[in-house]
């Protein structure tokens, strides 16, 4: 581990506008010393991958709400891989327990459900990044 701050890209993909959780995580990570690249709403997978590459980011955080996680999260993992980017994908939001195994199987690094404490958010992001480097 180094002292360089973690650079993380935070985004929501597609139509869903529930951004309270994403903003919350953005502020928590910022206050914990991370460099947050906050893309906000209505992003595409391609755009997020491009930003990760340009910004040399260490992690991607996606926020999901409307049950599209089973489609969009594996797609993000796959797109990062195809672009040759070994960057963990951290998923936050409303994810039913029975979907967790399938998502982890698809390569999602961490899933942060409702009620996760700020400490757990920061620790999970650090661990996910450290385990890759």
């Amino acid at each position, binding site marked *: 581990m180094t002292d360089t701050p973690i650079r993380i890209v*935070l985004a929501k993909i*597609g*139509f*869903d*506008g*529930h*951004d*309270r959780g994403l*903003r*919350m995580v*953005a*502020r*928590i990570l*910022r206050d914990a010393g991370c460099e*947050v690249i*906050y*893309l*906000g*709403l*209505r992003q*595409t997978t391609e755009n997020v991958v491009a930003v990760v590459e340009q910004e040399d980011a260490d992690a991607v955080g996606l926020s999901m*709400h*409307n*049950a*599209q996680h*089973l*489609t*969009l999260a594996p797609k993000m993992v796959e797109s990062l891989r195809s672009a040759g980017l070994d960057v963990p994908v951290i998923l936050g939001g*409303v994810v*039913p*327990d*029975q979907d967790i195994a399938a998502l982890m199987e698809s390569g999602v690094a961490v899933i942060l*459900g*409702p*009620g996760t*404490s*700020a*400490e757990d958010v920061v620790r999970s992001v650090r661990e996910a990044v450290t385990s890759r480097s």
Partner: protein
Amino acid sequence: MANDAEAENGRQAWQDAYDRTPLRDVDFETMSGIPVDPIYGDGPYPGQYPFTRGIRPSMYRSRLWTMRMFAGFGTAEDTNGRFKEILRNGGTGLSTAFDMPTLMGRDSDHEWALGEVGRAGVAIDTLVDMRDLFADIDLGSVSTSMTINGPAHIIMAMYIALAEENSVDRASLSGTIQNDILKEYQAQKEYIFPPRPSMRLITDLIQFTAAEMPRWHPVSVSGYHIREAGSNAAQELAFTLANGFAYVEAAMAAGMDVDDFAPRLSFFFNSHSDFFEEIGKFRAARRIWATWMKERYGAKDERSMLCRFHTQTAGVSLTAQQPEINVARVALQALAGVLGGSQSLHTDSFDEAMALPTEDAARIALRTQQIIAHETGVANVADPLGGSAYVEWMTDEIERRAEEIFSHLDELGGGSILEGVYAGIDNGYFVGAIADSGYRFERAVNAGRRIVVGVNEFTDGDHPGDRNLLRINPQVEANQLKRLNAVKQSRDDSIVRSSLDQLVIDAADPTINTIPATIKAVQALATEGEIVAALETVFGTYVETAVM
């Protein structure tokens, strides 16, 4: 003494109004048989300006609140089945949830729709879907609420066209369409066009319904989403009422008389967990709206001054941990909504922190309202907490805080709340204030200064393995795409094209109402996405500046 005489007159006027009101056929007495009066305490009484104590003299003695349960998922047929289930179970109004692509004005075959079709609500692409959604339901006798904003005019046009097909007079249609775009820029983020052209569409619908659909509520000014996005109670109230004032100013600027449309405006609030704060908020809402409508906007018709509102319990308060305890949270929040004088109520299902509700969970939520209505006795007396020193203080305090926000917006807008709201959207005031309040709450929970039962205290007893959650059949998306494709094959494309061309012409001329051309387009089976795309050529598309 003059004051005594005035008080006596007020009491007599209330009594006269009460005596003219038909009552429900039940005994207004306690469980032990003690008869209770319809009101206690001092005036102004329920049904009297400024309506702090309620909008009707008899409140729930005449009519219980409408138990309006929100439902929608899968294809139109799936939701139609849930609607019929709600009506069979004693629900008294339908409330439609649309899926994300529909809410954003895009079709099920849009590339971003992947994984979203029919997931968080029902998918509606064309009038054909609308026919299936309301199959075997008499539009002339049911009251329907449709929760949609950006493309509200299109969905409304489909409903009107469907009524026409079923030989139901549009004047007899009863219900509400949310059609509240301002809070989309502030909180819910389901916008399509920029604020000013969006306001044009809303004003068009207000004018159209005022002329042709006297029983329809064309805007439900909604604080619910502002609160869910993180605001506190006073911000929820102030931003919502300010948006309401903005719609009033916009309709008046379009040449309407305030009393021609204001009686059909309604509101939608959140009922959160702080019991007395919520009750104070509901009471303050009525007083502020009445005062402003009379004093600032010159309303003369008393109905223009009534803040009628729907309430929903706070989805954001539901925990994924020990989800069954959410039943208790919902009951207390619903009780605050009733003690606050709501006209209709949706109770959340205990499993909603994890997924859309199962049928069993939705039934428990409805039963919770029925227990409050029929077992607790709270419906016997109007504004039963009025006169409590604490509740009166809370009402005043929430009002004072809201007035501070109105002053800020009035100043931002140079004496216009409408312009102030536009300015607050442009400069990030609303989004920032809501995010700050939400973050403050989360910090308090994280630091343990605020207890959330089951989350940061009392955490034993969670059984994540046994949850029975609603699963949306993944076939839904494929089925909907097939349906959409079949409609596109079946229709006459030249009529679709000419109807869209006419809509674009009408949209470009701000003196023409866009609703008639929209009805023509949906009748030609133009899709929602095609209509939105046509309007975007005139209105443009809104893109939010991302600020964390």
